[in-house]
């Protein structure tokens, strides 16, 4: 009944398939390719209002000076616990909410929030899939109409859009004959998420932002959808930003992983570096909090005590210092900045850039920009030149 829910992504991309997309699978092909998406100093602080005058009494620093880039064909995973800012980052990248500061560059061109035409084009090339598969579909439209909607808005004729919708159904493993006239409530969660992926692909985007896109699915269905996503990426040369709280899924999907904590990037690097040679004490804690899956080797002690602090007015200095067992005086005073791991290299040709104190120069140097596949960490204890020259060693 559920149709061929397997990993077939066998559809062909007809006319206009090129979409200027780069060839897929280029993920590990060195760091030469210029980034498809690049973000610098991205910031979003939400005001907290209170009191009888409804004044702003505090700020939630949801995203605080985040830098990242995504190369064509790669999967960048973003992990972190609730309130770390990963979903806000996604919304900022899509320009669904307005950033307080920061520059977003897509395919070499600066995206300007007040350039309506430019934004529209960027939104065509960058699409998003959300966690809640039901609320992202119009309950009153047959799913076919939902999928046709985007292309029609962008000037495709109804007939061509319908044709395209059928192709997309096949592409995501749903039999068009069986499904196109259905309404969202007539589908299972996994099928609805396939429809959402089809909707996202309708405009032939180059980059998909998947925000907890498989988190609400049962494990057996989650595996189907992950297989589908990887097949689509291969066939269509897509680039993903894959956001999840599930470390196993992120490890499985990603080429590089970015770890966030209270609005800050604490560590970023190739997946193997993050999972096997993690440097930040928070990354370490997060990874050792994963259930062991082996009844003979159960977790013996929790890596951290207490809950993550409230993102309203986060702690000064390193935001993790309140829970960090290595925390030192410098951690309470100075905010560490992303810098190459000490004794770099770490296996992945870390280009050891940044030098001893290179990180201090925010504008001049290109130290932070051209980070290739290197492994960066924001920790006074573990990074070279994490800032302020206060760090020991």
């Amino acid at each position, binding site marked *: 009944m559920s149709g061929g*829910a*397997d*990993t077939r992504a066998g559809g062909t991309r007809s006319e206009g398939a090129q979409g200027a997309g780069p060839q897929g699978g280029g993920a590990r092909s060195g760091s030469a390719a210029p980034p498809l998406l690049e973000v610098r100093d991205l910031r979003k602080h939400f005001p907290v209002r209170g009191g009888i005058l409804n004044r702003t009494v505090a700020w939630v620093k949801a995203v605080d000076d985040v830098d990242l880039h995504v190369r064509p064909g790669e999967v960048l995973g973003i992990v972190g616990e609730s309130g770390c800012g990963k979903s806000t980052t996604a919304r900022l990248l899509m320009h669904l909410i307005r950033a307080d500061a920061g520059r977003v560059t897509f395919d070499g061109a600066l995206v300007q929030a007040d350039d309506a035409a430019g934004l529209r084009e960027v939104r065509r090339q960058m699409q998003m899939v959300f966690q809640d598969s039901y609320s992202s579909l119009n309950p009153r439209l047959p799913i076919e109409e939902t999928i046709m909607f985007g292309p029609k808005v962008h000037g495709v004729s109804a007939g061509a859009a319908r044709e395209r919708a059928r192709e997309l159904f096949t592409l995501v493993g749903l039999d068009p004959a069986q499904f196109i006239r259905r309404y969202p409530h007539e589908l299972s969660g996994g099928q609805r998420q396939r429809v959402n992926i089809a909707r996202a692909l309708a405009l032939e985007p180059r980059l998909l932002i998947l925000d907890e896109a498989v988190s609400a699915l*049962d494990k057996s269905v989650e595996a189907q959808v992950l297989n589908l996503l990887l097949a689509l990426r291969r066939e269509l040369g897509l680039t993903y930003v894959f956001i999840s709280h599930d470390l*196993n899924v992120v490890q499985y999907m990603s080429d590089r992983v970015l770890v966030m904590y209270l609005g800050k990037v604490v560590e970023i690097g190739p997946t193997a570096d993050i999972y096997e040679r993690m440097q930040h004490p928070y990354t370490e804690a997060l990874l050792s909090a994963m259930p062991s899956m082996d009844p003979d080797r159960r977790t*013996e002690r929790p890596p951290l005590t*207490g*809950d993550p602090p409230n993102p309203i007015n986060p702690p000064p200095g390193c935001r993790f210092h309140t829970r960090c067992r290595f925390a030192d005086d410098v951690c309470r005073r100075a905010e560490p900045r992303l810098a190459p791991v000490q004794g770099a290299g770490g296996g992945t040709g870390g280009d050891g850039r940044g030098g001893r104190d290179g990180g201090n120069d925010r504008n001049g140097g290109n130290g932070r920009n051209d980070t290739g596949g290197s492994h960066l960490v924001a920790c006074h204890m573990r990074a070279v030149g994490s800032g302020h020259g206060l760090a020991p060693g």
Partner: protein
Amino acid sequence: MHNPAHAGTARSPLVRAEDVTVRFESRDATVQAVNSVSFTLDPGEVLCILGESGSGKSVTLRALMRLLPPRRSFLTGRIEIGGRDVLAMSERALADLRGTEVGMIFQEPMVAFDPVYSVGRQITETIVRHEGVGRPEATRRALDLLERVRIPSPARRLRAYPHELSGGMRQRAMIALALSCRPSLLLADEPTTALDATVQIQILLLLRELQRELGMAVIFVTHDVGVAVEIADRIAVMYGGRFVETGPVGQIMRDPRHPYTRGLLTSTVHGSLRGTLLEAIPGSPPDMTRLPPGCAFAPRCRYAEPRCEAPPPAVDLSPRHMVRCVRAA
């Protein structure tokens, strides 16, 4: 099938469920949520019911305490807790059982607490109501409980209202409330699912420790294999309202015999699978209003054969390992 003479024998189980069946009826459909589930639980044992959404795991747990909506649900079978027949109990007797013998914790701690009273007041009230001790004594015990579940500055937290606590603290407070009358059985319905990873592991380890110290039996419902492995002595895998496989946790993880259990384990992602295609289970979970008379998993099972159209037999591979599949026979 027929009820055996209860209790007796060498070591009587704390919980005995036989042919527990739950249907939900509405005007246009009947949901066969739980279909003839039977199991026993020894004192001090931890059983995890592992299943995906809609498999009937939470309904099974609620049925044990008769917490299902009375008019729309139909519960049959036999349930004994501590030798007492739960289905024959009066509401009054049931309320006593719920506080003293059996504690419950849920995914969402806000449902366990009344938002308008302080946490301390709710815990002391429970102790006073069930144990008939004075208020000062009850307050002392409440403080002790908060310490036990490792809530920092417990004296201050006693005066806090539920909404003033963070998610992890609230979950700890709910555990304190559930343990306030020293139950011999704790029923836990996905208590860590809404928590962040670093908090989840703390709560799991806390539960494990309290369970050992107090010698409590626990029935823990979860959809997460990893969580089950951290806490269970025994796992019952549920699909389509049935226990399709039960066995000691080591056996289930190392040698799963039901095709669904195997599928569940192979489709649970872990890092070493990187670069390989996941062995997903095709299709979707069954429609519980239209369950086939035979094996509910057969439509998704790659080993399905004509015999699967009849109800699958429960095959005992060993005294502790049961599989409900024709191929195991």
